[in-house]
């Protein structure tokens, strides 16, 4: 069988899509809207700190975030190709997937920083 990178990228894209569809609504609703706007009382710092400092949380969030970033980058890449008809395929690909690498590094930093 031929080796091609596309199937693997697509698998990550799809996985990210599923996870985003399942997790993002509640995460976005709670952390981006309900807590800042006070619709729901934000949990105490201690409670959240306990959650994020758990190594399991680190693993879960790291996996979740990186796969979602792959999903987003992959999709956005095609949006640039088709929606804006940008023809520089290699450049666009490099920028998009390069952004995932930067993002993954940021995840490592930020999530790792919170896990003590």
């Amino acid at each position, binding site marked *: 069988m031929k080796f091609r990178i596309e199937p693997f990228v697509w698998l990550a894209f799809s996985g990210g899509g599923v996870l985003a569809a399942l*997790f993002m609504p*509640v995460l976005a609703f709670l952390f981006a809207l309900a807590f800042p706007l006070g619709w729901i009382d934000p949990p105490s710092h201690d409670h959240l700190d306990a959650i994020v400092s758990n190594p399991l949380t680190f693993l879960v969030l790291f996996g979740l975030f990186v796969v979602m970033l792959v999903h987003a980058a992959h999709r956005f890449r095609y949006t640039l190709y088709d929606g804006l008809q940008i023809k520089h395929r290699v450049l666009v690909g490099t920028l998009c997937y390069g952004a995932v690498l930067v993002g993954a590094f940021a995840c490592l930093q930020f999530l790792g920083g919170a896990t003590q």
Partner: protein
Amino acid sequence: MSRATGDDLSYRRPVPLWWWLHKRTYFVFVMRELSSIFIAWLVLYLLLFVRAVGRGEAAYQDFLDDAASPWLVTLNVIAFAFIVLHTITWFSLTPQAMVVRVRGHRVPGIAIIAGQYAALAAVTAFVAWLVLS
């Protein structure tokens, strides 16, 4: 194939740059694809949120205050709307991409969609319990 070539006078119509504004279904498609930006944004936002939590009580409160600023709320409302679009479209397209068979019979698309919403409810309930309990 022995199609004569060389004097091809066929007219090739260019695709307009904003082709996806010409038809509703195309527009919805591009909006669906643009949800990717907001997923990326929310990942970044959540990362910053976690970082703030990790930096202590004061940083957490500051972050919540910043997040209540009008421009960030506007951005997050838009982002949430795109997330909902992503979830709905993703779920509704799954049955086309995946054939699930139970005892040799193909599970109807509507059941697959319902299953996904059930999973969404479970995940939502779990996250809410974990965070709010």
